[in-house]
């Protein structure tokens, strides 16, 4: 069992929790992820390591389905059954020159760490973070601190610039020489946003989030098409060259269990109502 030390709703339906997991925390690097299982009947779900400090690992997630709702309902001092990691390859941190890091929605969880590592490696780092509305924007302070320059967008204009992160990215690559770009967020957002750097041939990384089971290369559930080849995102990634990724196939595979996910969430909601647990 792994104790949850702190938990906090940092934005609308977005939570951060700190888990005591020395084996993960001491070895984690920017871009890697964990797989957690809340309890004995739970599913194994992957979540990015948003930050590691001492023996603690921070994960930041949006409550979308059964497992993330259950995770959000866990109180500080309680424990989860399992956390394995760090998994996957770290981000490719080196002296690129000028880097742009784009975070969308819960994907922003991932970006401060990468920005800090790139900064420490001597890069100029430009951040762009976008959310549906002001209430859903997360980790703005950490990104402002980590980046040389930060742009904020919201889809409804309730904060920062009215529009999408992709709009800002387009302008930046038109005006300045950019050497590497990271785009992390919902799959559709990564697909659209990465078009902004394609023509110019700017090296662009996206962090893929297919459905996983073991996270150690043993099941093939997480297989994706990159540059026409089958890769296992959990061990070959999760970051890949955005311009080579077959996003449509990824989105199709992410939808496979939609019916069961709805059923599981409905069951959870019923459980929460009847026992008064949760938030």
């Amino acid at each position, binding site marked *: 069992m792994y104790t949850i030390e702190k938990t906090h709703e940092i934005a609308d339906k977005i939570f951060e929790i700190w888990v005591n997991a020395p*084996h*993960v925390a001491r*070895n984690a690097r920017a871009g*890697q992820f964990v797989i957690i*299982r809340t309890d004995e*009947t*739970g*599913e*194994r779900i992957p979540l990015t390591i948003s930050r590691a400090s001492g023996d603690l690992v921070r994960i930041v997630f949006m409550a979308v389905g*059964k*497992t993330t709702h259950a995770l959000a309902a866990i109180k500080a001092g309680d424990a989860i*059954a*399992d*956390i*394995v*990691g*760090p*998994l996957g390859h770290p981000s490719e941190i080196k002296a690129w020159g000028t880097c742009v890091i784009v975070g969308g929605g819960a994907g922003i969880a991932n970006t401060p760490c990468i920005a800090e590592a790139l900064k420490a490696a001597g890069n100029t780092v430009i951040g762009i973070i976008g959310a549906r509305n002001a209430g859903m924007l997360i980790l703005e302070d950490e990104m402002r601190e980590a980046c040389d320059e930060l742009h904020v967008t919201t889809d409804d204009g309730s904060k920062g610039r009215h529009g999408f992160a992709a709009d800002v990215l387009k302008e930046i690559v038109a005006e300045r020489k950019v050497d590497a770009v990271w785009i992390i967020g919902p799959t559709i957002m990564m697909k659209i946003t990465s078009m902004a750097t394609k023509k110019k041939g700017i090296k662009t990384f996206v962090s893929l989030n297919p459905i996983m*089971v*073991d*996270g*150690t*290369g*043993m*099941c*093939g*559930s997480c*297989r994706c*098409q990159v540059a026409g080849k*089958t890769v296992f995102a959990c*061990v070959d990634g999760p970051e890949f060259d955005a311009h080579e990724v077959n996003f449509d*196939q990824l989105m*199709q*595979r992410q*939808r*496979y*269990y939609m*019916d*069961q*996910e709805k*059923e*599981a969430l409905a*069951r959870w909601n019923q459980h929460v109502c009847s026992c008064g647990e949760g938030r």
Partner: protein
Amino acid sequence: MGDRPADIRVRDFLEVDCGLTADEAVAEANRCLGCKKPACVDGCPVNIDIPAFIGLIAERKFTEAALSIKTQNMLPAICGRVCPQETQCEVLCILGKKEKPVRIGQLERFAADEERRTGIKAPVKKAATGKKVAVVGSGPAGITAAGELAKEGHSVVMYESLHLPGGVLTYGIPSFRLPKDIVKAELDQVLSLGVEVKLNHFVGRSVPLDELLSYDAVLLGTGAGLPYFMGISGEHLNGVYSANEFLTRVNLMHADRFPEYDTPIAKSSRVVVVGGGNVAMDAARTARRMGAKVTLVYRRRAEDLPARLAEVHHAEEEGIEFITCANPTRILGEQVVTGIECIRMKMCELDASGRPSAVPINGDTFTIDCDVVIQAIGQGPNPVLVREIQGLERGRAGNVVADGDGRTAHPKIFAAGDVTTGAATVILAMGGAKKAAQSINSLLATR
């Protein structure tokens, strides 16, 4: 007692084979001639003293029989169930020449089950040596090595990336062949020797290589868990599984009991399994128990099926349809699988494996409607850790090259099981692990 009736057992995941009663076991044990030079023992990769333990069963000394087996094999209830006895110990039994060989596997299982029923005694171990050994992987190889080394008094840390120990015993072989409470009881008994188990530790990531190499010796038992795909079109469709994924979802995550357990699995009515080995049989029979009509497609003839004969019979009894001499060419569907196209194969001259090589008959294709395709065409050694270790030699299939005693090209690193041989058997992994443990022992004795 024999097998439970097929029409009943396909509705649950309980064990198919009920084993022997005490009287049946004693009668069977009495058939054994107690040969002076027992041929059967040569067929057992861990050299169990077969006439000795069978003699004890004949005398109704069941616990003593189990203890006798355990001096050579710490997992008898498991091996008695899953060993391919018919090609190992039993094939060499002298009685097999005239009538049926002694049912050694059943007797082994019986003794172990009796001992467990009456309470397993903790094994004894030597005084602490102060030496530390890391074991990577908790499958049959890792467990066996950890047990042997702990008995010698070394302090053993066993790392496992999944949330439960056991490797394929836990996530791969279905409970209707190998009940999970039996796996747990036998593993616990080995681990009670004082092995420190660190679950959720993916070595190479959760444990950096320099930390791993700070141990006095390392045993790699990481298995052959890398699933192969055929590389045909349509493999990305929803509904296409590797056997590993399908079996893991059910055995490890209990997706068959969704929504009581959270892990989902396809709701399917028609499943096609590709392959002809034990893994294919397990996947097919698992899918059948989840309510699907199951067809197995294999590219050679029925007599070439690499699976154990008993498993093929079990599958047939349970209503699995076999299509032999056919190979899939593409998987059909828009987003979700709707069918699979296959081509008929003709058998030509024998190939290197001694089986006829299968060659497609141009244009002779047919389609099977289905909503799930499970590929069970083989697995390769887990590459993730071994490719990162400097100074290890790797073979063509990505396996770690080790000599007959588990020594690798790296002086501190030993390897055993599927990671050295490619997908093989439980007992071979255990045999290899015992040898590797002896090598580690000699290394530690000289330091």
